[in-house]
């Protein structure tokens, strides 16, 4: 089987996986406790790393752009630049990449271990559909929590930028906050929330698909986990470009 055929086959399998998981959401049993447990594990569990990532991204963005803006006499636009960069681009992408490292790897490894120890077969033998019991709660939890984590990262990132501009460069606090308030548009916020929704769907699907396709014992679990993280990271970055372009067209912000 050549690479192109294999790629098409994988895409087909992932589409079927999402389709079956989505169809299962409307039938009983609904697995709400599993979904809440996953939201806790994915969302609450990732908060610390997202706060750290967001804060220092905003801080370093301010650190790097201050000089350039100062040379153009546009320091009053610092808050705008930092907040728009975070909300439109860095917040969604970095949050997705951090969650990929922490969550996609965990989901893939957990499902992969269950496959090689025949727990998935046991679940099916006991009359339970693993896609509804395991896949759907994980994808739903990711789709709900990733946008929330992104909002946290954006907010904390802006605070990081404000902290550097105020404490390191001695700018008036109101200059930074004012430019943030005046600069951010509704379109920026819509784009900043739509992106993580799509990323979450892609990341969850890749993680579950790679995990369930694990073969070859414990070595296979390692292989599928690596593959899930690498694939999800690359897909997030590629999807980011196309989503950004699509949002520009849809929201009418194309220059």
């Amino acid at each position, binding site marked *: 089987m050549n690479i192109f055929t294999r790629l098409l086959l994988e895409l087909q399998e992932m589409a079927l996986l999402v389709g079956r998981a989505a169809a299962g959401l409307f039938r009983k049993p609904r697995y709400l406790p599993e979904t809440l447990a996953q939201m806790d594990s994915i969302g609450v569990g990732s908060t610390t790393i997202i706060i750290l990532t967001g804060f220092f991204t905003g801080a370093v963005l301010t650190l790097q752009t201050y000089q350039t803006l100062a040379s153009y006499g546009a320091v009053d636009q610092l808050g705008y630049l930092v907040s728009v960069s975070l909300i439109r681009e860095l917040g969604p992408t970095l949050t997705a990449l951090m969650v990929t490292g922490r969550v996609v790897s965990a989901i893939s490894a957990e499902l992969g271990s269950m496959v090689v120890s025949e*727990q998935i077969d046991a679940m099916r*033998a006991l009359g339970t559909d693993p896609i509804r019991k395991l896949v759907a709660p994980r994808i739903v939890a990711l789709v709900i929590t990733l946008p929330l984590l992104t909002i946290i990262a954006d907010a904390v990132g802006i605070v990081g930028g404000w902290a550097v501009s105020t404490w390191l460069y001695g700018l008036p606090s109101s200059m930074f906050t004012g430019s943030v308030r005046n600069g951010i548009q509704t379109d920026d916020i819509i784009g900043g929330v739509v992106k993580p929704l799509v990323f979450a769907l892609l990341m969850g699907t890749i993680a579950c698909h790679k995990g369930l396709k694990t073969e070859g014992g414990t070595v296979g679990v390692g292989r599928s986990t690596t593959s899930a993280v690498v694939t999800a990271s690359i897909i997030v970055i590629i999807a980011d470009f196309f989503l950004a372009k699509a949002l520009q067209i849809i929201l009418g912000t194309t220059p």
Partner: protein
Amino acid sequence: MMTQDSIDQGIDNQVSAQAADSTFREVDDTERAIPAIEFRNVTIEFDGRKVLNDLSFKVMKGETKIILGGSGCGKSTTIKLVLGLLKPDSGQVLVDGEDVTNYSEVQMMNVRKKIGMIFQEGALFDSLSVYDNVAFKLHEQGVPEEDVENEVRRMLRFVNLEQAMDKMPAELSGGMRRRVGIARALVGDPKIVMFDEPTAGLDPPTARTICELAMKLRDLEDVSSIFVTHEMNNLDYLCSEYAVVNEAGEVVFEKEGEKLCLINSKVLMMSDGQVIFSGTDESIRRSEDPYIQKFLRGH
């Protein structure tokens, strides 16, 4: 007024009538003539290699089919096909006379409710306690917790592990894990049970315990089963002993002797995905096939 003799006579007649009734019901029971499991010319390939090649056999109601064969000969694949965990490339798989070959995953879920499956290493859910593992099926069906607990305790008593109810799978020995796997598979009293090398890697007494559980199911619960193994001890136990309840109400295991010959255990031997022997344990021991002889003797 009835005399003591006439009362005794009446009881005797009643017992005889009941015995006759049950005998004739048994004979007339056409349901029992339908095999619990039937394979018709089943072939399945993995990566261009035929793992099962035109495999056909039947497991009748209340019968234990012991499938022998070396590693990789298609034994585990056979039982996965019964459960619909794999689909054959050609041929038919029938469960209780129902052709399940082309059933969708949703349709198979109903068929699987009739079948209990015991996996090689137990396949217990690592994140759940012994109680939750055994209760898994009942929790999924939304059974009230009080009934779940009663059923879980009953099943754990059956495998002699009631004391381990609150333990996690990681805290159990290999044999205990298999026994919990058996308890989990038997929830809902399935009439068909699959054993996938349940004694592999276990010490002889624990292996014996697992075989006794299989005999209890066969002889006392009328369960049809496929018992996949490559250990000759298992064959000896399952084909030469049977479970009965003694006068004290205890389950005891007796050896078939000159008076009695077990007819509810049959042997199927596979090699390279094909049946090379089908019959009783006595006839397989008499076989002159060099492969079978080497397998039985180990050299």
